[in-house]
C-alpha cells in the first residue's frame, strides 16, 4: 500500500521533472509508429485471420503494456538497477539458454527466438538488450579505474557478452548479437577505455563478425544481394528491391496514408522490419525526415540526460542513458539503413515503431529509465527545477 502511494507520488513528481523534448520525441514516435503499423497490417490481418484489426489491436495492447511497465519503472530508484545489474544479466543468460531448449523455445521462420509466456510470445533477445545496458553501465561505473588502465578491464565484461552473443548466434539472431556488442563497446568507450586497446578490440570484433558472415551461406547471400539488389531482383534481392521501390514511389510527399502498394504482399514484413519503407512510400521524404529527426532528437536528449547525470555524479545513471542512446540510435540506424539498402538485411525492429510485443515493452521500459534518471538528476541539481516555468502550462 505504501509502495503504491509512493509510486503515485513519484509519478506526480514527473510533472515537474521531465524532459519536454524527449516527451515530444517519444510521443510522436509512438503515435506515428502505431498509425503506420495499422496501415501496414490491415490487409495482412484480413488475409491471415480475416480480421483487419488483428495486428493494430495487438500493437495497441503492446503499447499499453509498455506504458504500464514504464510507469512502474519510473517509480523504481536507480539504485535498485545498479545493485541487481549482474543478476539481471545472469537472468538474461538463463533465458537465452532456455529459449534453446527444445519445447520451450518457439521457432518462427527458422529461428528460435521466442518463449511462450502466458499467451504472449516473448522475444528474449529484446530483454537481453536492456539487461546488457544495465549490466554494462553498472560494470563501467563500478570498475572505472580498471577499465581505464588495464586491457583485462575491457576484456572481462566482454567475456560475458561473448557468451550472450554465442547463445544469440545459436538461435540464430546475428542482429541482436551485434546490437549488444555495440552497446558494450560504446559504453566502454565512453567509460574511458584506452584508445589503442579499444581500437584493437573493435577491429578484432569487426573481423570476427566478417568471418561469421563469410562462413554462413545465408548471411553471405544477404551481403552480396545488398551490394547489388538489382542483380537478382526476383530472388535474393527481392526484399530490398521492393523496399527501394517503396522509397521511389513515395518521393516528396508520399502516396498518402493507407495508399501504399508495396505493403500489399510485395514487402515482406511490412509491419515489422520493413515498416520504414511503408512510411517512406505513404508519407514521402517528409515523413522520412520527420522520423529520422525524431530519432535524432531522442539520441540528443538521451546524451543530454546522461551528461547531466554524469555531472551530478550519478555515473551509473549516466552510462545507462548513454547505453540507451547507443542502443536506440544504432538499432534505428541499422533498421532504416537496411530499408534503404545501405546495410545488409538484419532482423532488427525500428525502436518503438515496429510491430512486436517484447520490443515495444522493453523499449518503453528503456525510455522510462531515461525519464527516471532525468527526474533523479533534476531533483538533486536544482531545488527550483529549471524546466518548471517553461513547461508547467504546456
Amino acid at each position, binding site marked *: 500500500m505504501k509502495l503504491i502511494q509512493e509510486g503515485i507520488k513519484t509519478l506526480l513528481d514527473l510533472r515537474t521533472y521531465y524532459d519536454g523534448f524527449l516527451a515530444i520525441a517519444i510521443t510522436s514516435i509512438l503515435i506515428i509508429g502505431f498509425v503506420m503499423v495499422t496501415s501496414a497490417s490491415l490487409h495482412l490481418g484480413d488475409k491471415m485471420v480475416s480480421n483487419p484489426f488483428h495486428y493494430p489491436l495487438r500493437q495497441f495492447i503492446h503499447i499499453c503494456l509498455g506504458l504500464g511497465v514504464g510507469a512502474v519503472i519510473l517509480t523504481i530508484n536507480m539504485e535498485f538497477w545498479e545493485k541487481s545489474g549482474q543478476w539481471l544479466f545472469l537472468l538474461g543468460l538463463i533465458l537465452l539458454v532456455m529459449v534453446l531448449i527444445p519445447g520451450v523455445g518457439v521457432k518462427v521462420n527458422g529461428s528460435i527466438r521466442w518463449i511462450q509466456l502466458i499467451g504472449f510470445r516473448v522475444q528474449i533477445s529484446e530483454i537481453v538488450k536492456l539487461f546488457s545496458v544495465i549490466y554494462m553501465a553498472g560494470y563501467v561505473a563500478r570498475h572505472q579505474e580498471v577499465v581505464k588502465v588495464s586491457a583485462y578491464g575491457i576484456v572481462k565484461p566482454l567475456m560475458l557478452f561473448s557468451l550472450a552473443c554465442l547463445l544469440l548466434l545459436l538461435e540464430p539472431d546475428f542482429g541482436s548479437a551485434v546490437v549488444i556488442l555495440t552497446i558494450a563497446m560504446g559504453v566502454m568507450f565512453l567509460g574511458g577505455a584506452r584508445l589503442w586497446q579499444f581500437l584493437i578490440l573493435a577491429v578484432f570484433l569487426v573481423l570476427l563478425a566478417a568471418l561469421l558472415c563469410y562462413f554462413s551461406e545465408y548471411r553471405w547471400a544477404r551481403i552480396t544481394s545488398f551490394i547489388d539488389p538489382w542483380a537478382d531482383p526476383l530472388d535474393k534481392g527481392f526484399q530490398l528491391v521492393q523496399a527501394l521501390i517503396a*522509397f*521511389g*514511389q513515395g*518521393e516528396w510527399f508520399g502516396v498518402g496514408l493507407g495508399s501504399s502498394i508495396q505493403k*500489399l504482399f*510485395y514487402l515482406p514484413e511490412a509491419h515489422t522490419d520493413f515498416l520504414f519503407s511503408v512510411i517512406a512510400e505513404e508519407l514521402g*521524404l517528409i515523413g522520412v*525526415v520527420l522520423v529520422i529527426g525524431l530519432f535524432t532528437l531522442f539520441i540528443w536528449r538521451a546524451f543530454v540526460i546522461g*551528461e547531466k547525470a554524469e555531472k551530478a555524479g550519478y555515473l551509473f545513471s549516466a552510462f545507462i542513458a548513454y547505453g540507451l542512446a547507443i542502443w536506440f*540510435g544504432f538499432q534505428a540506424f541499422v533498421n532504416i539503413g537496411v530499408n534503404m539498402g545501405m546495410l545488409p538485411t538484419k532482423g532488427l525492429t525500428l525502436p518503438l515503431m515496429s510491430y512486436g510485443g517484447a520490443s515495444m515493452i522493453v523499449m518503453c521500459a528503456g525510455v522510462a529509465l531515461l525519464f527516471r534518471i532525468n527526474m533523479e538528476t533534476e531533483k538533486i541539481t536544482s531545488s527550483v527545477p529549471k524546466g518548471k516555468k517553461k513547461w508547467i502550462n504546456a
Partner: protein
Amino acid sequence: MISSYQKTERKTGSEQRRQFLCTVMFCGMLMLLGKAIFLQVLEKDFLKHQGDIRHIVDVNVSAYRGKIVDRNGEPLAISTPVKSVWVNPKQVSDVASQHITGLENLLKMPHGKFTKIIEKNADKHFVFLKRHVSPVVAAQVKALKITGVHLDREFKRFYPSGEITGHLLGFTNIDDAGQEGLELAFDDVLRGVQGKKRVMRDGKKNIIADIEEISSPVPGRDLQISIDSRLQYLAYRELKLAVKSHQASSGSLVMLDAKTGEVLAVVNQPSFNPNDRGDLQGYRYRNRAMTDVFEPGSTVKPFVIASALDGGYVSANDVVDTSPGFYRIGRNVVRDFRNYGVLGLTDILKKSSNVAVSKIANEMPAEEMWGFYNRLGMGQSAGVGFPGEASGTLIDYQYMDDFEQATLSFGYGVSMSVIQLARAYTALADDGLLHSVTLFKRDYDEDSQRVFTPKTASNIRAMLEHVVEKDGTAYKARVAGYSVAGKTGTVKKIINGRYSNEQYLSLFVGMIPAQDPRLVMAVLIDEPTVGGYYGGAVAGPVFSKVMSRSMRILGVDPSFQRDQKKPLVLAVQGYRP
C-alpha cells in the same frame, strides 16, 4: 570517493568522447537522410518505373463468343461465364490440411492431388487446377482463402440441344476456339476480339485496381442459322430410331427448304454430345451428311428421265421394252430385279428399272447427259461452307463408253454426299430451278440455276408420286394427308474394290407436297443388317415419319389430290415440340 584530480581528468576525457560518439551518431543519421534524398528525389523515376513493372500488367479480357441461334431464334450454342481455378505454386505454403481436402473435394480431385501438383510444378507461376467450374463451386473455393489459389473468369460453351446439333455446330476447345463444325467454320465471326486492360496487382498477383482499358473486348456476333430446331429434333429422333432398329452402321438425313435452299435439318448417326466430350472418337463427330460421299444409285434415275425429256430424246408417253430383264452393252450386262416387260416413264421410276434408264441414257450423247449431271452439282461441293465438305466425283464424259453411261444413269460412277443429293432434288422440287444450299436463314435464293424446264420438273414429280403407291418401291414413305414424290435407292457398297452383294446403302429422297414442294429430304441408312435393306423399306419410313410431323409443324395445308386414304385425322397424334 572520487578524488578531485580524477574528477577533472575524467571530465575532459569523457567530454570529448561523448561529443565524438554523439557526432558519429548524428553523422549516421545524416547519412540516412542523404540516402533517403537520393532514393526519393534523384532515383525516384527509376524506382517508380521498377515499381510499375512489378505492379502493372496488361491482362486479357475474354470476349463473349456469339450465340448460334436457329431460324426461330432458339439458342443452339451459348456462352456462359464460368470460373477457372488456378494456382501459383510459388505462393503456396503451409495450407491447412482441411483446406486442401476441402479444395480437392470441391474440384473433385483425388486426395493428395493438390500437393502433388504443387510439388510437380514448384518452379512455375501458373497451373490450372480445374477449368470451367460453376459459380457455386467458385464461391466455395474463394471462401477457402487458400493463398496462391486464384479464380479467373472464362466462358464455357453450352449446347442446349446436345447431340441433336452436335455434328452441325461442332464445338469449341477449352480456350473457346472453334474446333469442328460451324464453330470452326465461322470462328472469325463468333469469336469476337479479346480485350485488354491494364491493372494493378498486389504481391500475390491479385488484381487490386483497374487502371485503364486498353482495348475493350468486342463480343462475337451472333449467328442465325437456317436450321429449324423442331424439325432438327424430329429428324434426329427418327434417324436414330431407324439406325438402331435396322442395326445400321451409320445414317444421315438432310432436309432442305425447296424454295430457298436453306438447310432446315441435318443430322447423322452415330452422334455425340458436345457438352460432354469425354467420349470423343473420330467416327462420332464426322458430319457424314456433308463430308462422306457414296454412289447415289437409283436416286439419280429421275434426273436421267428429266434430261431425256428436256433434250427431246423421249416424250412423256414413250414406252421402253425392258425384256428380257437384262440389257447387253458390249461385254457387259445391265440387269433388272426381274423382267418388267414394256414400261412407261412413270413405271420406269416406280419399278426403278435399270434396263430402261440405261436404254434412255444411251439415246443421249454422253456430253449432254454429263452436262445435266454437272449442272445438278455432281462433282462439285454443295457450297455451304462447312469444314471438310465433300465434292464427290463425276466421271468425265470424254472417257465414258456406253456401258459407263448406262451405269451412270442408275447412279454408279458418280459419288456425292447426302446434302449434294438433296440439293440436286431441288431442281425437281422447284420447277426446274436448282437451288444453292445455305446454312443461313434467307428469304430468297439469288443463286438458283435453271436445269430443267418447269413442265418437265412437274412431270417428273407427278411420276415420282407413284413411287409411294402401294405397288411402288417406297409405299412406306407415304405421308397421310400429303402427296409425296420421291425415289428410293438401294446401292451396293464397294468392298475391296468390288460391288458387294451383302452390304448396301438404303436411300430415299423425296419432296412434299408433291404438287408444290415445300420440303426436300434425303435419307441415307448405311449397312442396315436387320429388317431389310431396300431404300423404300429402310429409309422410306424415316421420310414418312419426319415429314408427317414436319408438315403440321410448318402448317402446310394437306393436299387433296391423291393420297387421301387416311385424311386429316392424323393431325390428332400431331407432334408438339
